[in-house]
């Protein structure tokens, strides 16, 4: 191809970085060309994010050099690097919550008129950028009131606002629906056509096939695969990432679907949810899917007593229930795993043990609210072992675990005591291939044990690979329900987009 003949736009030479005793990036040499879209793959902790942060100046590597057009970048100086047109979109959102979208986009390069901000021009510029991404963002609202997906789009718009020569995106689609991701891809292709070098870090292999020209896989800090996208199958890539062949993506289904445990009828809370109903059986995995903003999470939150509903009934074991607070739901045997692991599920500053037993402290209470430490340690130890949570011990702080292991802690918490209905929202968001399989195995094991699992997910392969039945929502209403065996990805997408036939 002609791109290969061109000189490299960005050259990484001998880049090396340690975190304490961990060799995060080991002597990496890479070249990126203008107009090329490169997918950077690897498990969590493989060093992808560290490498890209070093390129963008967010951290100063121990050794190594990065050149743009042959001239070295001032590593460790994000401002200078951004000024040369190297932009990184971070995995975590870096928006200033109380400011509006246009103010965030313009932050650091405000449109000026004398000493004043030219808000009108700034808003126009932001509106153009957001329109490119098909985001209908309300510029009068502070960004922290926007849905997460929209915040992600604002973040992307911000990176596109400056002159971009190299655009690096760290899991840009993890909070986006397929449709939104599609729009982002269109913009990315357009940028590449204009000669921008694009690097994107992702865990979604279908995205790689759709978007990338070239694939780089990292493992343990080093580049293990580098070549044109067309040369690799999914299996090759997974094997390269985990360092061993992975036979299956999903565990085998062996379930005994039993009685109805949870019956939901006419559940409503306008304007987000209208007349939602379904039945959930014991030993079953029911997937609730749809696009971002379809109201799936709202349904889960209402079931668990986090948000109120204005109409409809929820029956647990045939008895009408109305949970006014999560504590009531949890005592009735429900469990809830939020999609926002760090914000809503775990207390990162506390130990693995304290996070595991938090919803059930009452069970460990003795006289005067004294905690029975022995019993707590026993239970925590058992969960750590059964779920193979990689930790130095129950007293390790949760913030020090990898994303996959943090998610296991969020799951394990509901397994400490018998849980009858487990509601999990995007259970594999931000989790790498190896970690995903373990979460899937866990869900399978729970279902076999007779737990009724309600899995909220927008990852269609996951929905099809794991669920027994699938309920699809669109703009707050159920648009279809089917057995997983009868469903196809295309059909689900149609229902999710509201094409009811």
């Amino acid at each position, binding site marked *: 191809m002609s791109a290969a003949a061109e000189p490299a736009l960005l050259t990484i030479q001998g880049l090396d970085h340690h975190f304490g005793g*961990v060799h995060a990036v080991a002597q990496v040499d890479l070249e990126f060309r203008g107009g090329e879209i490169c997918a950077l793959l690897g498990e969590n902790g493989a060093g992808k994010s560290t490498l890209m942060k070093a390129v963008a100046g967010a951290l100063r590597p121990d050794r190594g050099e990065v050149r743009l057009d042959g001239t070295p970048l001032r590593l460790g100086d994000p401002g200078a690097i951004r000024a040369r047109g190297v932009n990184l979109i971070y995995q975590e959102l870096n928006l200033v919550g109380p400011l509006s979208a246009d103010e965030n986009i313009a932050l650091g390069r405000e449109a000026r008129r004398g000493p004043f901000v030219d808000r009108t021009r700034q808003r126009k510029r932001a509106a153009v950028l957001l329109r490119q991404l098909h985001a209908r963002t309300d510029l009068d609202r502070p960004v922290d009131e926007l849905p997460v997906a929209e915040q992600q789009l604002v973040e992307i718009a911000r990176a596109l606002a400056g002159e971009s020569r190299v655009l690096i995106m760290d899991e840009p689609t993890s909070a986006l629906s397929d449709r939104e991701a599609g729009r982002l891809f269109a913009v990315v292709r357009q940028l590449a056509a204009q000669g921008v070098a694009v690097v994107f870090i992702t865990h979604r292999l279908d995205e790689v096939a759709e978007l990338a020209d070239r694939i780089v896989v990292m493992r343990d800090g080093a580049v293990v695969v580098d070549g044109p996208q067309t040369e690799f199958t999914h299996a090759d890539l997974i094997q390269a990432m985990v360092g061993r062949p992975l036979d299956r993506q999903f565990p085998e289904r062996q379930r005994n679907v039993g009685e109805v445990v949870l019956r939901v009828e006419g559940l409503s809370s306008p304007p987000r949810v209208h007349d939602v109903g379904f039945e959930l059986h014991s030993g079953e995995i029911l997937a609730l899917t749809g696009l971002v903003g379809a109201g799936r999470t709202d349904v889960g939150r209402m079931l668990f007593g986090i948000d109120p509903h204005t109409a409809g009934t929820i029956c647990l074991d045939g008895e009408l229930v109305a949970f006014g607070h999560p504590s009531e739901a*949890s005592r009735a045997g429900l469990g809830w795993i939020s999609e926002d692991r760090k914000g809503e599920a775990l207390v990162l500053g506390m130990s693995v043990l304290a996070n595991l037993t*938090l919803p059930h402290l009452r069970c460990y209470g003795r006289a005067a609210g004294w905690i029975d430490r022995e019993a707590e340690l026993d239970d925590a130890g058992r969960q750590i072992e059964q779920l193979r949570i990689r930790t130095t011990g129950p007293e390790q702080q949760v913030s020090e675990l990898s994303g996959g292991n943090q998610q296991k802690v969020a799951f394990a918490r509901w397994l400490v005591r018998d849980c009858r209905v487990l509601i999990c929202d995007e259970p594999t968001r931000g989790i790498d291939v190896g970690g995903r399989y373990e979460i899937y195995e866990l869900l399978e094991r729970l279902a076999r044990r007779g737990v009724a699992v309600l899995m909220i997910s927008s990852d269609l392969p996951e929905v099809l690979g794991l669920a027994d039945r699938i309920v699809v929502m669109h703009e707050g209403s159920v648009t279809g329900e089917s057995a997983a065996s009868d469903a196809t990805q295309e059909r689900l997408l149609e229902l999710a987009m509201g094409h009811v036939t």
Partner: protein
Amino acid sequence: MKCAPQLFLGAWRRWGLVGAFLLFCAFLAVATPSGTFLSGRNAVFVLLQISVNTVLAAGMTMVILSKGIDLSVGSVVALSGVVGADLVAQGMPVPVAAAVALGVGALVGLINGMSIVFLRVAPFIATLATMTAARGMAYLYTDGISIGNLPGAFTFWGNGRIGPLPVPVFVAAVVVVLTALVLGRTIFGRRLYALGGNEEAARLAGVRVGGMKLTVYTVMGALAGLGGLLLAARLGAGDPKAGQLFELTAIAAVVVGGTSLTGGRGGVWGTVLGALIIGVLDNGLVLMDVSAFWQMVVKGLVILGAVALDRGRS
């Protein structure tokens, strides 16, 4: 991921403050006229001086762990002090009067908690309001004058001794030990750390966040009431002007002791150390004959330095 530096900083956080405190004591031992600082009598005196602040700071530790703040404690010290003093002066038995005074403190705390939980007022503002109002009520209650002539059964709690130690030191020790047990060993304590560390996660895990906050501020109020009683007993008078800026000294002890103002991290033993550092500093500067104006400047710098050292970990 985090190896040597993390370990070192962990050790620093645990023992660095103790080491700094001991070094500081060694310095004062040399810098003060011989025999004045390093003596049993002076040590007991320092403990007596910090006992009221320690009681307040123990409560403040819980408040700050919950990611809150309570500015009203100084005013509650005055209000509970005058109420308790007035009741015993009128002949009410000391335990009954004390219970009423504690109740007054708890009530102010409950009001703080209710404005924070039900009216969703920020803790800083809610307690700023009661700081002003409770001070005013203390003046109203006494018409602005202090209430003296208190019986020995009451002043014993401020000036009496059990063995070699003054009674307020015992009271403070009991409060600290109980706080440490509640924080470290009980369900309430665990939930408090969770609430301060991530309120939303705690709520979704079934913690009744509102009830927790009500309890924390009510306990803080009662402890401020206890501080007020101890102070009135020691001064032999209920003074509506008492306790000014006590809230800030208590907050300083908590923060110097390593408890994070962002909630969920820290503990009461650090607070005790913080109160000790501030107490020894006050004492040492007096013994070194430093002017009162310079004392304030030095104290401010030491607080800043201690906290900066602690934050040096990130």
